């Protein structure tokens, strides 16, 4: 045994909604799992291990990976929970990769899920921050993002109109994605007229709260091609969960994305991401990130993000589509969100992304964001890596 190359051979998602009163959490998980098993034409007996995650405080269940075995299929299998806040979904995709690459498991089922409708999201998320230093003054997820946007705007003269163009793009893309929660276009004027949450972020600049689950099946190279004619090969992963205290953050640029991208691109031979990548599913929880973080990715120089967005390059049909699925602004079941980015890129690599398919893909990137301005990323390829 030892190092094995890994591919995604199937995935499944629920139809994500703001509320799913017809199912409890583990029944929601089960839907995604069944969809993934069908997609890969496998049964539960074929699965060797389960990697699962969510953010406990959103569902209020302790040892939740143990609780959910009825729905996840974990009965009498190895079950491991990974959880890292908003990055949970991408952390899970990285986890599944290592579990299969290790040679210990041939086929691993990865599950990310969240039932945000069951709790007060801000109330729960506020507990992420240090109770002595940060929690009393920094409420919720939005505050950090607003500071980032303000810092960037002050340096580069970008405006909320630039950010709104990102929101318009993603909401238009989501119309072609049957799984997305919000499937209605918005205009720039509508975004700017929507209620201000934390200057300069408007309601329509940010992600909704969603009940949803996503399941991805990874397999090693010995069986991947038997299970799937065109599997999605994992070329590499990198992450940075660098900051512990919100006030330490270097606001206005996403250091963790720059660090992770540098590492990932170096080890996979990506020298010109704009030329070598054909699709990106960016975990973009709010619109400004769509301008700022593509600079950290190295797609464009600092301060040139807005220009690139306005050029239409990142729209479907453009040079490098970003979030053909509609991304996080259209759908956000937090524990699943990062995994959905991974699943969506896998559909692109397999040529099965339906109306949102990007033509002639070779390499794609999925990212995760969360915690204290953290980043995860994964490079996917149509061909097997060397």
């Amino acid at each position, binding site marked *: *045994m*030892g*190092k094995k190359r890994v591919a995604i051979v199937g995935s499944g998602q629920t139809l994500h909604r703001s509320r799913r009163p017809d199912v*409890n959490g583990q029944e929601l998980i089960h839907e995604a799992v069944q969809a993934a098993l069908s997609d890969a034409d496998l049964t539960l007996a074929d699965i060797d*291990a389960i990697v699962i*995650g969510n*953010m*406990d405080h*959103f569902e*209020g*269940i*302790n*040892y939740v*990976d*143990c*609780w*959910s*075995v*009825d729905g996840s299929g*974990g*009965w*009498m*299998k*190895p*079950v*491991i*929970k*990974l*959880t*890292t*806040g908003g990055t949970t979904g991408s952390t899970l995709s*990285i*986890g599944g990769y*290592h*579990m299969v*690459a*290790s*040679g*210990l498991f041939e086929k691993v089922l990865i599950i990310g899920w969240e039932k945000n409708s069951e709790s007060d999201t801000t109330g*729960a*998320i506020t*507990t*992420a*921050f*240090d*109770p*002595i230093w940060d929690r009393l003054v920094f409420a919720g997820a939005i505050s950090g993002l607003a500071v980032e946007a303000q810092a960037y705007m002050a340096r580069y003269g970008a405006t909320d109109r630039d950010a709104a163009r990102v929101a318009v793009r993603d909401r238009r893309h989501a119309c072609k994605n049957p799984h997305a929660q919000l499937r209605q276009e918005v205009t720039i004027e509508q975004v700017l007229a929507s209620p201000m949450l934390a200057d300069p972020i408007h309601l329509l600049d940010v992600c909704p709260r969603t009940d949803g689950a996503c399941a991805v099946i990874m397999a090693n190279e010995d069986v991947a091609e038997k299970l799937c004619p065109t599997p999605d090969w994992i070329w590499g*992963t*990198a*992450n*940075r*969960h*660098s*900051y*512990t205290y919100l006030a330490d953050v270097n606001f206005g640029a996403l250091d963790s994305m720059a*660090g992770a991208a540098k*590492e990932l691109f170096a080890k996979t031979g990506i020298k010109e991401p704009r030329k070598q990548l054909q699709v990106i599913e960016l975990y973009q929880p709010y619109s400004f990130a769509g301008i700022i973080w593509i600079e950290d990715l190295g797609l464009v120089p600092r301060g040139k993000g807005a220009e690139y967005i306005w050029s239409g390059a990142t729209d479907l049909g453009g040079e490098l589509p970003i979030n053909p699925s509609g991304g996080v602004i259209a759908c956000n079941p937090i524990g699943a969100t990062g995994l959905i980015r991974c699943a969506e890129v896998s559909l692109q690599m397999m040529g099965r992304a339906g109306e949102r398919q990007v033509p002639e893909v070779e390499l794609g990137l999925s990212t995760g964001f*969360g*915690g*204290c301005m953290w980043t995860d990323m994964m490079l996917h390829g149509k061909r097997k890596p060397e």
Partner: protein
Amino acid sequence: MDKVAIIGIGMTKIEADKRGDTFADMAWEAVNLALADAHMTIAEVDNVVTTSNDFWDGRTISCMAVGDATGAGQGKNTSCVEGDGTFGAFYGLTRILSGAYGTTLVTAHSKGSESVSSLITNAALDPIYDRALGLDMVTACALQARAYMHRHGVKPEDLARVSVKNHGNALRNPLAQLPLKLTVEDVLRSEMIADPLHLLDCSPVSDGCCAIILANEQRARRSARQPVWVTGVSCCADAYYLGDRDLAVPRSLAQAAKRAYAMAGIHDPAREVQVAEVYDAFTYQELMWIEGLGLAEAGGAKDRLERGDFDLEGPLPVNPSGGLLGGHPVIAAGLYRMAEAVKQLRGEAGSYQVDGAKVAVAQGLNGLCGQSHCVWTLDNRS
């Protein structure tokens, strides 16, 4: 499985209330102990897996608290497992076996002193069918204890003997919280918490952090310390609802153990394992897990215990460190078992050393009544 070894360990003292330490302080202490133990710097740690629990820590994204203290700020790839430290170590192991990293630092922590444990564990009960009944870990485990005792004719005295042994062993472990010289009578006369579990049948809920460093073969052979090799490891989860399981039978543990032993080439664990560190959150659990690990027949652990087989001087010492009865930082608990097993196999356990120990088993668990287990077999021979 490629060869992977544990080359460094660090454990904070286990205490009832580490009032002067935050989670980060504990992690800082354990990590630096492990680095010093391995003669390594943080720069030589290729990636980090921390283990924590959001409920116990009162923090969603509980891993955030220990980021700086575990090297996340050093531009490293990091991740977090929520569950017992043995599961964190398992994921850390796969990140080496995948070929991605040469060394993994694994930590696990909790501070039981910062919360009301009954409410924290009540939150593990299904909110739809079970939680309103008001059980917690203690009452749930009491159900299991009764089922196990009824099945095999195990008496309260048999449970009490585990407490006497482990608190007694703790007298020799400077890190233990509760070194106590007890008699069986002391245990039986202690306050009844939930029948059949007396106070002294229960582990405390403690504060502590443990860190270990895993290394691939190449890095392990360059290590300044004698490597302790991972020969087998497996995890397995049983059904969730207590009523779906036969609580008297540690089915998922038996499967995990079987697979770990198969990987290690251990055919007769009761004879080949020389020391065991097991998850004795309650006295009855030590007996059940000994049996689930194949170290005694079903129902047979009590007789072996009474004969002294599991004492420090016996043929198969169990929890020579004092186990969790000696001090129980939840979440870190299984990683402490691994670290203690490493000490034994290195010959560094001082006055609680099991002489000539070459093969050890360490076990951790997750969930109510030992629903999910992770079993590790370790060997000090190349």
